[in-house]
């Protein structure tokens, strides 16, 4: 999440809202956000309904896979970064800037 925070200005400049999602409670997520200096919302999928709906629930860990989606203004998925690829958000940041140029 820190990596998105570091790129937040670029993403906001490209009309992009960043939302973190995990199966932690809203309070744990707030404490986590404060600890690492994240200013965008960290959403709580307590129970994992949305994580399952997105097909990301991993039984073994009782948690989500590490995945970033870039969703366009039309609600369609524009980019995906999966598992270890998702640590470095450069691909998504670049894609946002590219889509901004197109619009």
């Amino acid at each position: 999440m820190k990596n998105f925070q570091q790129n937040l200005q670029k993403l906001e400049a490209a009309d992009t809202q960043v939302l973190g999602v995990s199966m932690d409670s809203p309070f744990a997520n707030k404490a986590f956000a404060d600890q690492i200096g994240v200013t965008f919302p960290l959403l709580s999928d307590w129970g994992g309904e949305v994580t399952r709906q997105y097909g990301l629930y991993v039984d073994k860990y009782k948690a989500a896979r590490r995945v970033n989606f870039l969703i366009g203004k039309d609600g369609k998925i524009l980019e995906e970064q999966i598992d270890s690829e998702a640590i470095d958000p450069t691909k998504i940041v670049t894609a946002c800037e590219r889509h901004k140029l197109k619009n």
Partner: protein
Amino acid sequence: MRRSVRIQIVTGLLLGGLLPAFVANQASGQSKAPEPLKLRVGDDAPDFTLQYFDGSDRKDVHLSDYRGKKNVVLAFYIFAFTGG
């Protein structure tokens, strides 16, 4: 003579066929593609309502809030207080 030809053939097979296959296998092992997701690029992202705590209140967020207004990065992570 015949034996050296055979050695050459075997060496040729190793270098020409097996070795590159082995190297390719090793390389693909290092950059193994992750298992694909149920949702693919081009699919509609399912709408949701989730909450976060802003320090004083719980706030609802709907993905549809951003429809027609902003792109959204949805970053699923495994647990709070872990890296990534």
